[in-house]
């Protein structure tokens, strides 16, 4: 090869490498669920639902949270909230009863007022009947979510989101968002079926059982 041809091939190789590097970096940046403006002004109502199986590829068997934006259910767990405000949260749960490993989380912590389960004020759940929880450790918040009984009629069997007509429980509570910041939230119920201690897979993936509250 002549010197010119060698230079050209080096430059071409550099270009190809640069493209590959850009592609490699891009593969890491994707997969981050979009933030959802869930709180409808002025009352700051947020509605979440939890489903037993996501139902879509590639993780159709994973449990998941959904969040309502307007009248649509979004598959995300990154939620934008206003700072220093009271936020009213409703969790509609279609999943069964998993049971808590640490029963401490069966009582609500850090909420304003109490919680209601299916309309009834409740001070604590039966730890074995818990299905999920909504916990924001940095805000000192942890709320248990009652599971649907095994023999309840009309269980949700479709891919998520579940229709509101199928068997579910409803939990409502109010939290106070603190200073602006990005607060992680998670579920404390070992609900990831098949994973050791029920804490793999969806329990460790933002978009399923983990998320952020973007308080601004």
């Amino acid at each position: 090869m002549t010197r010119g041809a060698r230079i050209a091939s080096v430059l071409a190789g550099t270009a190809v490498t640069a493209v590959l590097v850009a592609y490699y970096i891009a593969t890491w940046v994707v997969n981050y669920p979009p933030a959802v403006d869930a709180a409808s002004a002025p009352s700051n109502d947020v509605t979440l639902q939890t489903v037993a199986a996501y139902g879509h590829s590639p993780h159709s068997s994973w449990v998941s949270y959904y969040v309502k934006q307007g009248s649509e259910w979004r598959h995300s767990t990154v939620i934008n909230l206003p700072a220093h405000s009271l936020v009213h949260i409703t969790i509609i749960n279609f999943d069964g009863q998993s049971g808590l490993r640490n029963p401490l989380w069966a009582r609500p912590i850090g909420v304003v007022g109490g919680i209601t389960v299916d309309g009834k004020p409740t001070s604590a759940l039966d730890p074995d009947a818990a299905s999920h929880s909504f916990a924001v450790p940095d805000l000192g918040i942890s709320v248990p979510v009652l599971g649907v009984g095994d023999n309840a009629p009309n269980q949700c069997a479709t891919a998520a989101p579940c229709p509101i007509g199928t068997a579910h429980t409803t939990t409502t509570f109010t939290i106070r968002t603190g200073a602006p910041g990005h607060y992680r939230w998670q579920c404390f119920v070992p609900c990831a079926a098949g994973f050791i201690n029920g804490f793999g897979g969806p329990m460790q993936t933002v978009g399923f059982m983990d998320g952020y509250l973007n308080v601004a």
Partner: protein
Amino acid sequence: MSHDAGSSPAHGRRIITTWLALSVIGVLAVIFGLGPHMPPGNVSDQAAEQTQTNTVLAVVMTPIFIGVITFFVYAIATFRAKEGDTGDGPYVKGDRQLSQMWVGGSIVIVLALAIYGTFELLAADKGIAGVGGGQGSSPIVTAPANALQVQVIGQQWAFTYRYPQYGDIETVRLVIPVDRPVIFHVTSLDVMHSFWAYQIGVKADAVPGADNVAGVTVDHTGTFDIRCAELCGVWHGNMASKGSVLSQAGFAAWIARQSTPVPLPGRRPVYYPDPNGRAG
């Protein structure tokens, strides 16, 4: 280098003089400049011991570091080949006496450090040994009778705390009294964590099926940072919280306010998480 000292005494003398001068400056800087700010501070007896050890090690290491660097810098600056000089250096293949001195000296330093570290580790301070580190289920020294027992339970992704002397209540916030020995029993409900209370100088791995004991006596009221120091999954970096040190009266008042509406199962020294810990 004694072997060459006869032929050119100036090199050796210059290095040793520079080394001594810089070492004195360095040691003084470590003691009086860095020493008062040396982490992790003196909030507890154990943290103070760690701080002291850090300072002592820094004082011992400073002359060694300065000595080696001085030698290298001097040698690099002095023993350069002149431009165009293709000749070789002197044919010197070693010096038995110097090597023996080096070996002897380094063994003495190592022995001294090991003895000092062992002494610090094993010496009991107000009935607590082990400088705040996790010691497993059979600690070196039996804890004093008045010590507060706290079980630290790691789980994905939070620490919770049980107080067996106060009706086995469990809290999400760590509160301990000042001037009273505290014995942490660190364990885990799922994967490995590590309970790290930085300012009070406690670190103990939380291992499922194991009871890891670490003791501390805190000397000042205030708050301290708690972190997880062992990779435990997706929120490992977010497993941070604050603990509080209250006066003994304040602690008694705080503990009286705690209640457990949920019937908690009996506290056990360790927990064995069910691998299939889930339902449908």
